[in-house]
């Protein structure tokens, strides 16, 4: 039976595929740990930034800082979409893209125009394919993003906000909730929200002045938020890939089991047939 050889070939090929997906799963697991550690390492810095911010009576300074000012009429919104450069990570990018499309649809419904700035080849290609116009795409950020990457993106978009091209900057990215869960989120970056208007009585001496500190602090916070989004995406990508590759490995295992069973059955059928032929032949001789 030619079928036997065919089956045996498929079983070998499947075994190789399984080995590849298994390796990818292990690589993703180790990278996931490293990127997640990195994500956690940024927390003290971020916490301290907000702690310093809380020492300044923000509401008082809104007038002086355009980055804090809500525009009366929002005509155009920039949406920053953070995706990955590589695939094989399940629905990770698809869920971010879906969220971004929802945000865009909502804006269209409200009669507001928007522009899409995409990080990651996957998002840029998918959105373009769906017929969206991609205003800018950044594909040179690796799965090990640096703060410099974030700063570059942040500064370009901040510029567009300040010169009035856009009235808002939003970001859509995937939140690394846990190893097993990544959730797409949409957040407002600019204008930066001023929380609470209660009077802050600070015991701190502000050097040289609250204004000068804010002038540096506000961009620092915005850069850091974008940096955090990049890291969340990097960690989530690895986690999602791990799960996707584990499923692929399990699936390969399952198919291999079924094929092996068919192979054995075919082999047995062949033997039985041969015996029947021999018995038949011997009988004829008698």
């Amino acid at each position, binding site marked *: 039976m030619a079928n036997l050889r065919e089956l045996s070939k498929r079983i070998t090929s499947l075994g190789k595929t399984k080995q590849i997906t298994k390796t990818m799963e292990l690589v993703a697991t180790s990278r996931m740990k490293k990127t997640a550690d990195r994500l956690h*390492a940024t927390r003290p810095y971020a916490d*301290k930034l907000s702690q310093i911010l809380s020492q300044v009576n923000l509401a008082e300074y809104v007038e002086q800082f355009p980055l804090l000012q809500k525009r009366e009429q929002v005509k155009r919104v920039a949406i920053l979409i953070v995706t990955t450069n590589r695939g094989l990570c399940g629905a990770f990018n698809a869920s971010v893209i879906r969220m971004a499309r929802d945000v865009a649809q909502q804006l269209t419904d409200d009669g507001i125009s928007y522009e899409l700035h995409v990080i990651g080849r996957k998002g840029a290609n998918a959105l373009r394919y769906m017929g969206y116009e991609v205003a800018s795409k950044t594909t040179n950020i690796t799965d090990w993003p640096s703060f410099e990457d974030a700063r570059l993106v942040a500064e370009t978009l901040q510029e567009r906000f300040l010169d009035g091209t856009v009235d808002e900057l939003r970001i859509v990215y995937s939140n690394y909730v846990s190893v097993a869960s990544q959730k797409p989120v949409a957040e407002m970056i600019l204008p930066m929200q001023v929380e609470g208007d209660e009077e802050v009585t600070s015991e*701190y*001496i502000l050097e*040289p002045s609250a204004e000068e*500190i804010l002038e*540096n602090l506000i961009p*620092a916070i915005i850069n850091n938020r974008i940096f955090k989004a990049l890291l969340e995406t990097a960690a989530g990508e690895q986690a999602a890939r791990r799960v996707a590759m584990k499923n692929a490995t399990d699936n390969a295992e399952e198919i291999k089991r079924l094929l092996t069973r068919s192979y054995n059955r075919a082999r047995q059928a062949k033997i039985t047939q041969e015996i029947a032929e021999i018995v038949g032949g011997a009988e004829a001789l008698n």
Partner: protein
Amino acid sequence: MARTLHCEILSPEGSVFAGEATLVVATAIDGEFGLLYNHAPLIAALGKGRLRLELEGGGEKVWRAEGGFLEVSQNKVTILSDKIEEK
């Protein structure tokens, strides 16, 4: 008890340094300033320049920072900078 300041230098990528120092000299926007034990609570915006720590038990460490913030309260100094390099 040793009269030292507990210093921590943080960058967005993580902790750069943590340790005890007897003197901290940093460059603010308008020039250098020094911090000793029992300094009043202060938040400063840092400029481009040196950050020098005189460590407990002698020795010193120097960084070059470009922008950032320094916060001191209750003898704890936290330096935040996204561009800092050891010299």
